[in-house]
């Protein structure tokens, strides 16, 4: 899983992709995931980190993370080839 280079994300969840010129808004959870991706973490590592941060169960995290990664891939924020891979 590789996040596109130069993705900019602001404190209040404004996300900009200079490669395509698209901008997005995301929430606190989304921001955290993008940050972890930028640190080069894989899916399992992201889940572990999130579990430590948020008050919820692993199943919800796993389901929601998969969906979020799918959306990132869809918008070409994640490298399309790696978005679905584990």
């Amino acid at each position, binding site marked *: 899983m590789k996040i596109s280079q130069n993705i900019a994300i602001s404190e209040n969840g404004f996300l900009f992709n200079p490669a395509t010129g*698209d*901008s997005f808004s995301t929430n606190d959870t989304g921001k955290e*995931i993008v940050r972890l991706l930028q640190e080069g973490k894989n899916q399992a590592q992201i889940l572990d980190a999130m579990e430590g941060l948020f*008050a919820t169960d692993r199943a919800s995290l796993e389901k929601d993370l998969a969906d*979020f990664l799918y959306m990132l891939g869809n918008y070409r924020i994640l490298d399309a080839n790696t978005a679905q891979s584990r």
Partner: protein
Amino acid sequence: MSKRTYERPYLRKLNAGLGNKFGTRHSQLPVTEIDGVPVASIMEEYGSPCFVLSEQTIRQTYRNAVRAFGTRYPKVQMAWSYKTNYLNAVCRIFHEEGSWAEVVSIFEYRKALGNGVPGNQIIFNGPDKSADDLRFAVQNGSLIHMDHLDELYQLSEILATEDLKARVALRINMDTGVYPLWDRFGFNYENGSAWTAVTKVMAQPRMQLVGLHCHIGTYMLSAQAYAVAANKLCDLALEIRNQYQHRIEYLDLGGGFASGNTLKGSYLQGSDVIPTMDDYAEAISGAILQHPFGMSGELPTLFLESGRALIDDAGYLLGTVLALKRLGDGRRATIMDFGVNLLFTSFWYEHRISPAQDYSSHHEDMVLYGPLCMNIDVVRENVSLPLLQKGDRVVVHRVGAYNMTQWMQFIQMRPNVVLIDTRGQVHLIRRKEDVQTLNSQELTPAYLEANKGS
């Protein structure tokens, strides 16, 4: 360090296109209570889904209608349209408020009698009245609103053989300038069928023509159409007076007043475009009062059979999120535990849906599905809601009309219905169905029963 509250991750592409000049409208606040009763406590006790009715709203809405008409016209009588919601508790509230009953089948008729409505305060409408139904209604002194000539002849025969007299009215359909024209019920005004029917009734010594009736459509967005209808009924009544020296006692303008729901495909919210009760009252009363009925004692009584406008607002459906998924085209889909089985009106309304718990400022567009394993089960094709999670509760608004009568037992059972009384007490008024309810109606032939399990 304590953990942060979790909200599922959300990502929305920002489009720098043309702005929406109306803005994006979200229902701003979660709906956690109905008439002061917590939604969560109702669902914990009565399950999910669950229909809720507010007695306070029913009475307020009714009184507003009575005020709107009563301040403009001296003689007004409401008749509760049973088919709109014939739960006995609901009917009894309307009857307590002074409403008569308007029924369209013998089943509804018997319900009205059971609710204590005297026979002579029941209006019997509709195309389906058997000989037995007619006989029974006539014996009870009810008002028989005739829909077709076959009914007229049948009634005539019954009256002759049984030596009875009936108080009757004719249902008239007409062009009021709105589309679609409802011409399948009753006798047409413009083509002369209505007058023919009048002459036939007047020739029957055992029938007393006491009223003229119309119901010009439903969810009528034009109050003016009622003025046209009232004018035509008045002209007919005055023509009868001139030709036969016979006084028509009442004009029944039916129902059809819109509720605050938003029609599918409507650009604006329903509550922003519908006429008010005062608009309808002004159009109808104004039209009747312009006709030369003479002294006010001669004025016909105005009957109204308003249904949806009197009960829609008082009904809520509480439900729960079953699951969330992403569709093939990337759209978000949310699956609820209620669908078109309970919300028949979602076929033509875009029902307002509110979360029943706090949420953040993020919203997403989604399609809202019901629980049925059937493709037709779509509650909202596109709705913007906060980030719902499995188990979250929602409140669907304005579902009091037609849903608790047209609901279907299909795949799922009908749920509990509760009434919140004016003191905030919750009462179960219809028990949820279960497999026993259904099986109790079924019979297995003995030869199949004998082979059971073999």
